[in-house]
């Protein structure tokens, strides 16, 4: 393994250099990925830009501060005969490095506030999906239809992940990021999610959508998205929810509107699928813990 990782290193360093230059990062996690995905929605792109702005500001400040430190370390060594100055005060400097950071922070807060307000507005959505977290799977309900199913870790991954399974997880496609039944969504549609949980707290997170939202038993949290690019997008539960917290992935399949409508119609047609999935309402069960 050491050897293979060495060659991995070489590949890695190459990729590292490449990724540092190009900001475009693929929709799903990639080896040696260094940065956040810009995602596939307007909000996710805003979040990504916000992230880059703060990051770069911090880098700039870092360069100044660390620069000053390294300069002192080399320029003011006793071994080089540096003699210590006596001063321990400079009101002007102190005012500057109190006021300037405040200004910088205000500069950060303004765009952040705007983005946050846009992301908080779940109004006039065309489709509402109810998401319920269970230990350790997700239920998706297309509100207003009877389409409603459970989505859990794909079989092959579930077999491979067992201690001593003997299966090399590298051979399992999308290991731990694949499910038996993905959540199918239309693109270019404002979709509102109402998110809750049935047992403990979970958190629904698909990085390319730009947010995660906790699923709290007994309460509903809302979020929205409007996907711009069709594709298969992967995420995971992001709140510790017990032993299989690491094994309740999320897959969103974004399809063109027409395809989606056809799919939804088909789902309504085959009822057994719906029968098969037991309907559990949180109200009945939250108080069991």
């Amino acid at each position, binding site marked *: 393994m050491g050897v293979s990782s060495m060659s991995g290193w070489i590949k890695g360093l190459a990729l590292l250099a490449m990724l540092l230059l190009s900001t475009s990062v693929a929709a799903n996690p*990639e080896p040696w990925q260094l940065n956040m995905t810009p995602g596939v929605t307007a909000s996710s792109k*805003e979040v990504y830009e916000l992230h880059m702005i*703060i990051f770069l500001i911090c880098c700039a400040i870092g360069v100044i501060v660390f620069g000053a430190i390294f300069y002192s370390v080399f320029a003011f060594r006793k071994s080089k005969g540096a003699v*210590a100055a006596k001063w321990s*005060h400079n009101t002007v400097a102190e005012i500057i490095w109190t006021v300037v950071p405040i200004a910088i922070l205000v500069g950060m807060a303004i765009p952040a506030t705007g983005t946050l307000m846009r992301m908080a507005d779940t109004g006039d959505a065309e489709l509402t999906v109810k998401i319920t977290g269970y230990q350790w799977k997700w239920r998706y309900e297309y509100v207003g239809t009877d389409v409603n199913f459970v989505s859990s870790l794909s079989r092959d991954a579930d077999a*491979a992940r067992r201690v001593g399974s003997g299966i090399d997880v590298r051979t399992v496609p999308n290991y731990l990021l694949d499910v038996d039944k993905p959540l199918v969504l239309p693109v270019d549609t404002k979709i509102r999610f109402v998110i809750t949980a049935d047992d403990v707290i979970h958190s629904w997170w698909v990085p390319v959508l730009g947010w995660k939202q906790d699923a*709290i*038993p007994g309460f509903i949290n809302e979020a929205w998205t409007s996907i711009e690019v069709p594709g298969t997008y992967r995420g995971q539960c992001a709140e510790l929810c017990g032993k299989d917290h690491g094994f309740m992935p999320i897959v969103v399949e974004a399809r063109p509107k027409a395809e989606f409508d056809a799919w939804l119609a088909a789902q309504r047609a085959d009822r057994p699928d719906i029968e098969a999935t037991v309907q559990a309402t949180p109200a009945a069960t939250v108080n069991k813990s």
Partner: protein
Amino acid sequence: MAEHATYGAHDDHAHDAHDDHGGHQQSFFQRWFCSTNHKDIGTLYLVFSLIMFFIGGAMALVIRAELFVPGLQLVHPEFFNQMTTMHALVMIFGAVMPAFVGLANWMIPMMVGAPDMALPRMNNWSFWILPFAFTLLLLPLALYTFFGIGGGGPAGGWTLYPPLSLQGGNNVAFTIFAIHMMGISSIMGAINVIATIINMRAPGMDLLKMPVFCWTWLITAFLLIAVMPVLAGAVTMLLTDKFFGTSFFNAAGGGDPVMFQHIFWFFGHPEVYIMILPAFGIISEIIPTFARKPLFGYQAMVYATASIAFLSFIVWAHHMFTVGMPLGAALFFMYATMLIAVPTGVKVFNWVSTMWKGSLTFETPMLFAIAFVILFTIGGFSGLMLAIVPADFQYHDTYFVVAHFHYVLVTGAIFAIMAGVYYWLPKWTGVMYNEMLGKWHFWLSTIFVNVLFFPQHFLGLAGMPRRIPDYNVAFADFNFISSVGAFGFGFAQLIFVWILIECCLLRKGAKATSGVWEGARGLEWTLPSPPPHHTFATPPVIDDRQLAHGDVTH
């Protein structure tokens, strides 16, 4: 060493009447179990903290070993979660906090010219509760791991969020009562620090002449007394929800699981500053010494510390940006959190200005101090990024957060503790530590700790959630690197242990002068090394020229 040597000309044997606790005429039991001596109790705290650091570290190594490569090789998910939870609890309550209390015990009385802590017997109790508290905390895990008895330790994360934390078996009650004991211990410890600093200062040791370490601890102690009882309340509610049918955290009963998070973080955020303010104090002692230049902006440092402490009470919900807070609340907590960068920045800039135009030498304490300033600042930057709510929607509960808090905790709190130990060790033991090994310890730690935690930023940004025992192969490479760093850093700590053994037990090394460091200023440095078992029998006469901050016009 002279047990009854007292300070300077103020030798006063009157007090010997009731002084039957000088080391030599004491039995081992008397000295270490019944002690009323701040130095012995300080030593106990520090030894305890080191043991806990290794236990917590061993758990961390289990975590890193499992995360070495994708797939589950070593432990079952449930046990992995127990490791994560216990690692954090042991490190925070067992390693970092007791270490700072130990340093406070050793140094504060000598710094302010006191004979001992204000309430020496309570001081002893504060310490001796801890080993028992941790026995209680570790018992379920130990029974399970070594004897296969019971279901193991708590596995709901150190934040103990219900309903999950309530799903635990017998360990829930053990954890809760252990936390109660730790709370009692830290509250009494904090009361002692406040009483000592307010009431035991020698005449002429004005508050604004005190070493910064005393100031930061005074403020830390206040934070402790203010928030530890709140934690006790929070876990008590967990207890009654699980065992006595209350509905604090149950929506069906009109409660709310998120309410626990609010109460917990009202404790939790000040707690993280409890773990960094004393570190700020230590760094503010060390940098001027090795820059041979007075601390820049002493009073600004004090006020900055105070404002950080104040702000720490109104930022707690920045840990909860994804729980579905009202928009207004999210905005308020974002702004308040960002503000903390300002006073913290003042501190960083003051440290840099202290080094500027100084006459620097780079003994081990200084190396750790400089590394602290740089690496803590990096952790601070990631903290600031986390404060930006929309960005935190992505960062939250990923390894980006794990990277953030290990930079502020390991290269922050732990590095400061190590710096402090190297700085004061010659004073405590009268023997210089092995500078060569010290430098080795520093460089190995600094290199490996970055190998360990820096890649975790990438993992988090790429989308790896925290608290998972297994991951997609896309995360494999950086996890591999991180684990290598973990073992490197871990074993580097064995050097530290060896240095301590040489210095404290073998007494190998050059004799330390009372000043120890060329640039050291302050009352503690006027004492012989090692200082007499009882430092001041009578209030010493303070000579402002000996103090680091004697000149209040500065």
